[in-house]
C-alpha cells in the first residue's frame, strides 16, 4: 500500500547511545554575530552554550553517560540532571534528523 514504506527506524536516545552528527551538519562559529550556528539543509539551528558543549562531544564513540560525566565535571553540576537534559536535547535533534546513533 502507498504511504506505508518503512526504512530506517527512529533513533530513541538513551544513556547508552553513542551519538554522532551526520557529516552534512556544520557546527560553525559565526564571527559576525558572535554565536554558534548549526547549518543543515535549508535550516539554521542556534544552539546555546550547553548544546554546543554537548554537540562537540558527539563523536560516535562516547556514550551519553560519558558525555554527561565530562560536562558534570566541567560545569560542576549533578551528573543525573545533565544526563537527562542531554537525552532530551539529543532526542529532539534526532527527531529532526540531525543526530544519529
Amino acid at each position, binding site marked *: 500500500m502507498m504511504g506505508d514504506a518503512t*526504512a530506517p527506524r*527512529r533513533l530513541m536516545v538513551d544513556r547508552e547511545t553513542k551519538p554522532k552528527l551526520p557529516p552534512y551538519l556544520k557546527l560553525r562559529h559565526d564571527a559576525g554575530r558572535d554565536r554558534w550556528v548549526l547549518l543543515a539543509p535549508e535550516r539554521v*539551528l542556534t*544552539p546555546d552554550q550547553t548544546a554546543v558543549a554537548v554537540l562537540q562531544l558527539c563523536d560516535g564513540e562516547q556514550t551519553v553517560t560519558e558525555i554527561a560525566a565530562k560536562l558534570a565535571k566541567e560545569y560542576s553540576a549533578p551528573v543525573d540532571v545533565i544526563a537527562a537534559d542531554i537525552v532530551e*536535547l539529543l532526542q529532539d535533534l534526532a527527531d529532526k534528523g540531525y543526530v544519529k546513533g
Partner: protein
Amino acid sequence: MTEELQANAHVQTVTVDDEPTTGVEGANDITAELCALAPIGLLAELTHRCPLQCGYCSNPIELERVANELTTEEWCDVMRQAGEMGILQIHLSGGEPCARKDLEEIVSTASEAGLYTNLITAAVTLKRERLEGLVKRGLDHVQISFQDVDPENAERIGGYPGATQKKLDVAGWVTEMGVPLTVNAPIHRKNIQSVPAYVDLAIKLGAQRLEIAHAQYYGWAYLNRAALIPTYEDTLASIEFIEEARERLKGILTIDMVVPDYYAKRPKPCMGGWAKGFMNITPAGKVLPCHAAESIPELEFDNVKTRKLRDIWMDGSAFNAFRGTSWMKEPCRSCAFKNIDYGGCRCQAMAMTGDPRNTDPACALSPYHAEMVNFAKEETAKPPTEFLYRNPRNAADVLKAKEETLLPAE
C-alpha cells in the same frame, strides 16, 4: 508554524527555504537576531535556461537571455560578499543551475566564503563525474525536483523524455556520496494524487528531506493557474496525509510543506516578511526582496554590478518599500496579525488587486478574497485543462499578446 520550529530549551530552528514564498521562518526573536544586519538566505538564480518546460514554474514569463547573465567573476564576487556580510545559506537555482559551465567555480567560491551551499536542480543533465567534482568543491546539499512519481506523467509535466530515470540515478549518487538529499515535489492538479507516493519515494531514495511544495501562482504558474489549481478536497486530503506522515516519520524524514493559499482564510507570511531575512538575485544580477518582486512595476531594483550587496540589503529602495508595517493600508494597518503574516504577499496583492499595498487576497478580510476562492472553485469544477509549457517560444507568444492588449483602444 510547525512543531519543529517551536523553541527547544537549548536549540532553536529557523528555516531558510528556497521556495519563492517561504523564505526565512522561525520564532520572531531569534529570526530578528540572526537577520539584524544581513539576510541568512540567498537565492541565486544563476540562469533561466532549463531543459524542462514545467508549466508551474514561478520564473517570470520574460526569461532572461544568456547574453545578459552575470559572468563567472560577477557571481563569485556575489558569493564572497555574501559570506562577508553574514549570509549563511546559498541556494543555487535557476532555471537549471547546471546549465552554467562555471558552476564548479561558483560552488568553490561559495564554500570558501563559508556559505552552506544548496544545489536546486532538475538533475536531468547532471553526470556522475560532475556531481563528484561539485561535492569535492564543498557542495553541502542537493535538492532534486520530481515532476511526479509516475514516470510517464512526470515526463509529460516537465516536457522532457526519460527524465525520471535520470533523476533517480542522480539521487542515488547523491546519497551514495554521503550528501543530504531533498526530494522536491511540486504539487498541482495534475499530480496531487501522488502525495503519498512521494513520501515512499523519498524514503526509498534515503532522502533527508521532502518538500511538498504546492504550486504558488507566480510567473508561469500564474499564467497557468486555471490548469494547476487542485480541488479543495484533494488539497485538504494531501495536507492531512502529510501531517500524519510527519509524525510517523519523525527522525527518518523531514517533511516541509508549502500549502496553497487560494483556499486559505489567512495569508501566508510571504518570505517570512518582506526584506526580513532573504534575498534573491536574478540571472542578470538584479537584487530582489523576493522571487516575483519584478511583477510590481513601481519598484526599482539595484544590480550587483553597480552596488554592494550589503548596501542593497540595508538601503535599497525595493527592500525598504515594504519592510516593516508602515506601508500598510487597512485592513492590515489595524490588524492584530500584522506582525505575524505581514499582510501576506505583495506580488499576489499586485496581481489580483492592482495595488501591492492592499491586503493579500488570500486573507479573508480582503475585499478580493471571494473572487480568489471562486476562481479556484470554478476552475476545479471544470474538467482538467492543459497548461502552457515554459519555454522561450511560448514566452515570446505570451509577451507579444500582452503588448497587443496594451495598445490604446482608438
